[in-house]
């Protein structure tokens, strides 16, 4: 029996790669290792599960057993990898078991960032980064009326909007001046904020949380401006840090993520990385569309047709029903400026375009009804990785 392709991780990246690979190769043994129960679920749905009345159980679309059958793969749930030996092409589990691989794909994901916060309630701050986290979060919601959400980025705003479906009053706190600060220019963010506020979300921008103190069954949250909020629960959504420790210990080149080239190859032969743990030519893009592109390219490469990764323009959908939003951010080094189109008529939504001095479209954001223009604009936006 030939040695398997081992996929470390059963999130969207790992399972999508397995599915794409099986479209090209039915026979090569596949082994998928998972830290959790290895059920297939969609991580983007965690931040809008409440309004859909979904539970941790109902979010699982397919069990590990079903996935194993569909993918003709061996799936091992609840295992932890202790180390990788690139020279011998072996991974070792924490219980000492050794597994040889033909190729290893690291689809390890990312860890939530925890802000340094004082107080005896800081340890109770929740973050929702996987299905097990979501189950814990949901179990705390029954008695909650008020929730403080740390982080006004995409995930924080999605959770805040979703909590409204449970009749919970969310307060979003961020040191940035406006929500979706990395994605939207101020004018668009202001419009976005107004729509969410009208729906019931509160924002405290330009401040940080200094401490979270227990107060009976709930919490006092102290802010940097001296004010104190009473809340039933604190949810943190301040960003993700790619999981690089395993790769780094094995001598793979790492930076913010595990460094890979346009073929998703790491600095060691036969070891690849995709998804939220991977840094492709300097880009760490924790969204679904890049994962699809990566999985297709790497599946072809692993099936014997070396294939370079390309990224088209990849608009990001912000799932905030109070203000549907699509953002295709300009490249970090793009030269140009934001132009506002519309916005007077709330029903028509808001469109902003990032234009080069020669009027070439380099990025855009669409809010409300303007999101219908997504495909039309994406066709004219530059590729992220051509």
């Amino acid at each position, binding site marked *: 029996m030939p040695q398997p392709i081992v996929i470390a991780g059963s999130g*969207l990246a790992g399972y*999508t790669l397995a*599915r794409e690979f099986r479209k090209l190769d039915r026979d090569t043994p596949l082994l998928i290792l998972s830290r959790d129960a290895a059920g*297939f679920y*969609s991580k*983007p*749905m965690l931040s*809008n599960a409440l309004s859909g009345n979904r539970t941790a159980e109902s979010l699982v*679309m397919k069990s590990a057993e079903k996935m194993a059958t569909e993918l003709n793969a061996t799936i091992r749930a609840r295992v932890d990898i202790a180390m990788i030996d690139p020279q011998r092409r072996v991974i070792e589990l924490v219980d000492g078991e050794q597994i040889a691989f033909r190729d290893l794909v690291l689809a390890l994901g990312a860890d939530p960032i925890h802000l340094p916060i004082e107080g005896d309630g800081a340890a109770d701050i929740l973050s929702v980064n996987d299905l097990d986290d979501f189950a814990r979060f949901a179990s705390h919601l029954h008695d909650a009326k008020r929730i403080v959400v740390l982080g006004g980025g995409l995930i924080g705003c999605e959770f805040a909007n979703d909590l409204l479906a449970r009749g919970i009053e969310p307060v979003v706190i961020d040191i940035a001046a406006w929500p979706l600060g990395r994605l939207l220019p101020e004018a668009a963010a202001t419009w976005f904020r107004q729509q969410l506020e009208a729906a019931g979300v509160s924002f405290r921008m330009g401040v940080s949380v200094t401490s979270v103190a227990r107060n009976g069954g709930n919490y006092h949250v102290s802010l940097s401006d001296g004010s104190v909020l009473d809340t039933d629960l604190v949810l943190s959504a301040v960003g993700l840090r790619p999981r690089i420790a395993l790769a780094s210990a094995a001598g793979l080149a790492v930076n913010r993520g595990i460094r890979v080239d346009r073929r998703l190859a790491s600095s060691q032969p036969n070891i690849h990385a995709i998804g939220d743990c991977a840094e492709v030519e300097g880009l760490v893009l924790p969204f*679904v*569309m890049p994962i*699809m*592109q990566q999985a297709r390219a790497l599946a072809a490469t692993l099936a014997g047709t070396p294939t370079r990764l390309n990224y088209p323009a990849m608009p990001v*959908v912000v*799932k905030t029903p109070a203000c549907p939003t699509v953002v295709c951010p300009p490249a970090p080094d793009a030269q140009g400026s934001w132009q506002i189109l519309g916005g007077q008529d709330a029903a028509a939504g808001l469109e902003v375009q990032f234009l080069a001095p020669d009027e070439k479209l380099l990025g855009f954001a669409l809010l409300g009804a303007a999101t*219908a*223009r*997504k*495909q*039309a604009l994406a066709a004219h936006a530059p590729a992220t990785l051509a």
Partner: protein
Amino acid sequence: MKKWQCVVCGFIYDEAAGMPEDGIAAGTRWEDIPADWACPDCGVAKADFEMAVI
């Protein structure tokens, strides 16, 4: 008329509504959408969509 849901991102294709802004007329049935069509939100292939509700 049926609705189909993307298994990856939750995007729903509603046959009754179609996607006129993308050239798919209202009332276009799922089987009449080209095989190379992909989810507009996440890029998952048509073959990987699942039926959501009828």
